[in-house]
């Protein structure tokens, strides 16, 4: 089974590993703290934003999370990665805060609505219609993205198209793809954080990725014309 490509490495000069960072934090090392905030702060804000209604509240959630991290750092045993531990505290904090803000409809309840909607991954017009020979096969082939120069695929414009498509997703699909593909968590962590079954998480991830793929195809084809 081929593996999913890993995301690009974190941008950080000589990143320290978890154990070194934890030891430095416990010792009160400001540089280590700043490095961690820089590495994860933006991503934490984006994840917090999935739970709470405004950016201002999400910033408070991030602050509260860091306080929780500092209070708990003495008990961190390294059984999960530092990042996973940090984001667990974040999602718990965000959930509590969302409930207090009156936004307590859990993702698992929202998910039902999204799952009930009928959706196809690819526009049906792309396939040969029923009743014809080769019905259900591609009418015209998709173009491979890796035929394009890497500089085009990984360009600011392509990223903007992907971000816009993610922003437009229904809430739970946006939450799942943000946690899985953007933040890089495994399915078990995401199921825990959102209260979803593995199967439902996978369906929602598939729908989210399919919509982002469609947006990228549209964007990349437009540029090629």
């Amino acid at each position, binding site marked *: 089974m081929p593996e999913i490509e890993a*995301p690009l490495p974190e941008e950080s000069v000589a990143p320290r590993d978890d154990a070194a960072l934890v030891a430095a934090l416990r010792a009160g090392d400001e540089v280590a703290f700043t490095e961690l905030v820089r590495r994860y702060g933006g991503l934490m*804000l984006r994840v917090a934003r999935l739970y709470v209604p405004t950016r201002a509240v999400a910033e408070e959630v991030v602050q509260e999370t860091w306080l929780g991290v500092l209070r708990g750092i003495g008990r961190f045993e390294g059984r999960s990665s530092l990042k996973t531990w940090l984001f667990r505290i974040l999602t718990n904090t965000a959930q509590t805060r969302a409930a207090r803000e009156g936004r307590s409809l859990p993702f698992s309840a929202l998910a039902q609505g999204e799952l009930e909607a009928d959706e196809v991954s690819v526009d049906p017009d792309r396939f040969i219609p029923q009743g014809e020979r080769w019905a259900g096969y591609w009418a015209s082939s998709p173009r491979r*993205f890796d035929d394009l120069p890497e500089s085009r*695929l990984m360009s600011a414009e392509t990223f903007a198209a992907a971000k816009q498509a993610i922003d437009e997703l229904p809430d739970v699909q946006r939450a799942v793809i943000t946690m899985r593909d953007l933040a890089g968590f495994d399915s078990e962590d995401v199921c825990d954080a959102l209260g979803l079954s593995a199967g439902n998480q996978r369906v929602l991830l598939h729908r989210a990725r399919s919509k982002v*793929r469609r947006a990228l195809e549209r964007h990349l084809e437009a540029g090629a014309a």
Partner: protein
Amino acid sequence: MASELSCRELVELVTEYVEGTLPDDELERFEQHLVYCGPCAAHVEQMRETIRVTGALREADLDAAVADDLLEAFRGWREGRP
């Protein structure tokens, strides 16, 4: 022998395929289809590239004011420890 997958059916299974959660018999049908179907291979490649592009998205840093508040909180925590 199980019936062949159509392209339209295959595209609904791509996430299960890349997640490694397809049952054995479906996995076999999926991979057999890919052997002869270039368009579906291209589609699966597009999905993999989509995952890679999403994984490469970078967040803007926190606002400086928020980062400063955090540093203050850190110093407070450090001073307040026994």
